[in-house]
């Protein structure tokens, strides 16, 4: 039982990071039906930039929280600039092209970003300076750390903030209108280009924060970490129902929990034939299963195929 609660805690922590990244996928998909293949790389850049800032400031004797906050504050605009650049350079010119064209362009951008990160931050694993001391709290026999609490709290705050923007502001209304029907929204006076750009900016800002959270949780970063994380977050978005914001949040947390429990128990279930090193398989299994059996996801209403 303790192991179960422990895996649950770990799963929810990781899952809330997935959820924040998944929101980025789902927002962009909802508005222009594009899988922003390079979104995982934006998360990666967020983690790396934060790493550089934190490493530089760490010896300065500032309070640790301020150092992390500074790292995040630098990562956010950098990622937003990249997100905006992606949209302008790789996607906007292809908005009316056949469906596969922007996807291929996105794959190209993801390769470019990944290898630029390699050039700047090397191909080695990078250790985040452990400036925040991990404080364990005991719940029964399980442990939750202050870092985990911070990650979950930050994620919830980000999601709440996003929900406020989308459902309570004029900008949000315009975004939802554009997602519903771009053409009609345009006729109603919505500046489509601006709304799409803003969507990318918000998604990128979320990605930056997610990057910082992932980096601090695992304590390490690597130039290839973005693609796997991105893929899992995309799976989470599909699980929840792509284009659906609450769905992305639900899908993210669920996927995190499935992964953690799966990794924790797969040995028991399979008589130790499979071990926790199969953890990464679960996300893909979930993805394939959802797409095959319920392509609309848990909360989605969009139909997988339009005629």
């Amino acid at each position, binding site marked *: 039982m303790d192991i179960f609660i422990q895996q649950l805690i770990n799963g929810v922590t990781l899952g809330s990071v997935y959820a924040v990244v998944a929101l980025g996928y789902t927002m962009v998909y909802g508005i222009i*039906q*594009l*899988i922003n293949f390079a979104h995982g790389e934006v998360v990666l850049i967020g983690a790396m930039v934060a790493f550089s800032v934190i490493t530089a400031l760490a010896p300065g004797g500032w309070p640790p929280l301020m150092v992390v906050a500074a790292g995040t504050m630098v990562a956010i605009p950098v990622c937003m600039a990249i997100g905006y650049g992606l949209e302008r*350079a*790789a996607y906007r*010119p*292809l908005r*009316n*092209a*056949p*469906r*596969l*064209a*922007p*996807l*291929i*362009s996105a*794959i*190209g*951008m*993801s*390769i*470019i970003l*990944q*290898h*630029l990160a*390699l*050039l700047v931050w090397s191909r080695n694993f990078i250790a985040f300076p452990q400036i925040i001391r991990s404080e364990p709290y005991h719940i029964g026999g399980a442990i939750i750390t202050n870092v985990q609490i911070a990650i979950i709290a930050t994620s919830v705050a980000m999601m709440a903030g996003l929900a406020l923007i989308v459902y309570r502001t004029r900008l949000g209304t315009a975004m939802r209108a554009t997602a519903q029907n771009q053409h009609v929204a345009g006729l109603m006076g919505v500046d489509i280009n601006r709304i799409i750009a803003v969507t990318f900016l918000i998604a990128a800002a979320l990605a930056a924060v997610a990057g910082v959270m992932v980096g601090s949780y695992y304590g390490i970063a690597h130039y290839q970490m973005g*693609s*796997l994380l991105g*893929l899992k977050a*995309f*799976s989470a978005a*599909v699980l929840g129902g792509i284009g659906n914001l609450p769905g992305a949040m639900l899908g993210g947390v669920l996927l995190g929990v499935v992964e953690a429990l799966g990794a924790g128990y797969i040995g028991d279930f399979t008589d*130790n*034939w*499979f*071990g926790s*090193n*199969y953890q*990464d*398989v679960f*996300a*893909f*299994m979930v*993805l*394939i299963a959802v*797409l*095959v059996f319920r*392509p609309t996801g848990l909360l989605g209403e969009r139909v*997988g*195929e*339009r*005629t």
Partner: protein
Amino acid sequence: MKGRHPALVWVGAGLVGIALLALPFALAQAGTAWVRITNFAILYVLLALGLNIVVGFAGLLDLGYIAFYALGAYVYALLASPHFGLHLPFWLILPIGALVACLFGVLLGAPTLKLRGDYLAIVTLGFGEIIRIFLNNLSQPVNITNGPQGVSRIDPFRFGGFDFGKSETLFGLAFSGPVKYYYFLLAMMMAVIFVTVRLQDSRIGRAWEAVREDETAARAMGINTTNIKLLAFAMGASFGGLAGGMFAAIQGFISPESFVLVESIMVVSMVVLGGMGNVWGVILGAVLLSFAPEVLRYTVEPVQKSIFGKSLIEPEVIRMLLFGLAMVLIMRFRPAGLLPSAVRKRELAERKG
């Protein structure tokens, strides 16, 4: 093409044929390494041609294509190496590998091919990763794949006393192992080109085009789109498996490292760069991109060394940056590739409202 200067076409084809036959001896002058590099380039051509059936003909984006290559390679390695002590002949294992890859292709495709294109891309990507993760981990509790260490001492092709791993002299010419493989690969490539060109210009090829152009209309014309897509997927997978088996034999050693996501993406970029749907364009794309790292090694490296005194950026990284850039720029400025297929060109240049 039909009937236009047939004599001229035959002469041209003859000249190209002679050049291809003489090529390994010319390359051997520069070093056997170049023959090996050429062999790997042909393997990429085979992969790109296989993927072209899926992406170019039927319009399905497969981002996990390398998984089929991996399956073919592992089937060969496990059935012809000391790992299980099995040493079956290559002419038996190559088809088995293609069949296994085909089977997996059908298993993956049957439930997923009804999905819209971009979902299919992600599902295939996930499939590719799943296969790799299994190859990496299926060393316990029963050692099937030998995990990350991979399988080594894989048998070369042997036919009676004719061993592709050894050098020998025939008709006064020295045939090294790589040169023998070159001719085998060349023959395979010709066969695959023949098959794909004929398929494209057939009832099946037209059905693929119809599905690519407008699936709803294709269905209304009586085409069983699920089956016809599955056929493309299965054929592409078999070609991948076939190439994988040859890769294992030529290399003599394989590990999951050779079958990472980047490899899948590389094959996709070859197809995209050359021109989706155009067999000759795809071949051009594969040749260009598989020689790129070597060319970069011999150009960018010395330039960097002479300017900075050391190598700042590895050629591998430059290559990947160029890949990425090429994909973005081609989609933007030349979406039909370097050698567009006449049909594709119109489709991609057109702005759909």
